[in-house]
């Protein structure tokens, strides 16, 4: 009984907060900015509360951090770009230029 009442109360608070707080669209922009600058106290509180009630934005933030952490682990350039690399034509042009220079 008490559990049921608690759940109902929680649901109402969440619903009310979601209406009061910045939307998901505004929140994802703040999440991105939080990776660039320190947010003001008000922005931090709004973000914390929004994340508390919104799993989607929570995942969004986790994903941005996962992308950053993965990208900064310095993958080899060959992994990013498929194909052989320099075209034969470019290779020969550079070779000629370097020979002239020598």
């Amino acid at each position, binding site marked *: 009984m008490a559990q049921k009442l608690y759940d109902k109360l929680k649901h109402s608070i969440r619903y009310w907060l979601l209406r009061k707080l910045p939307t998901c669209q505004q929140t994802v922009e703040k999440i991105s900015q939080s990776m660039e600058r320190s947010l003001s106290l008000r922005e931090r509180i709004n973000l914390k509360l929004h994340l508390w009630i919104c799993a989607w934005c929570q995942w969004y933030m986790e994903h941005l951090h996962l992308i950053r952490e993965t990208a900064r682990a310095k993958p080899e350039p060959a992994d990013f770009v498929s194909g052989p690399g320099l075209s034969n034509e*470019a290779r020969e042009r550079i070779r000629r230029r370097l020979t002239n220079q020598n």
Partner: protein
Amino acid sequence: MNEPQGTSPGESPDPGRWLDDHGDYLFKYAVFRLRDNTAAEDAVQETFLAALKAYKQFEGRGSERTWLVGILKHKVVDHFRRAGREAPLGEESDEGPAHSEFFERPEPWQGHWNNDYAPNEWHATPAELIERSDFWKVFNDCLSPLPQRTASAFTLREVDGLKSEEICEILSIKVNNLWVMLHRARLHLRNCLELNWFRREE
């Protein structure tokens, strides 16, 4: 002390061998950042020319490739500086898609995630992803539809880890523009990775 690699001190430089040994590597490094084949080829050529001039200072200390990548980094930044000066970001600049369809919902929930685009849980760690070379191909393809400057700003920030101020100076943009670009790149890339990598992995 590092072992001298390739040419030993005192020997004359061999740019033909540099081209054979490191040309493709340097090209891929440059093309991922510049997103333009011609510009990447030019950067590689300028790197070798600069390396010939600076060869005395190198003299086989450390890895030849690390030394060349160090020069190439500067050439890539030079290219961005030139491009930023030649085509300053105008009033109606294109920072990338705003993807407002991600947040289309009937009232009263307009502005909240649309179910079709809402994030799902990803079951992955950086350590696993780094090992998957096919992940990086998807990553690169996902950046391709973005405007070149937005993709470059994202790469400088998230791959190379440059500071916001440095990127603004290099690309001749204001910090507010940079934040919009990074936000749009992240919004787009996250969704694209989810569709083309994480949902397929399941």
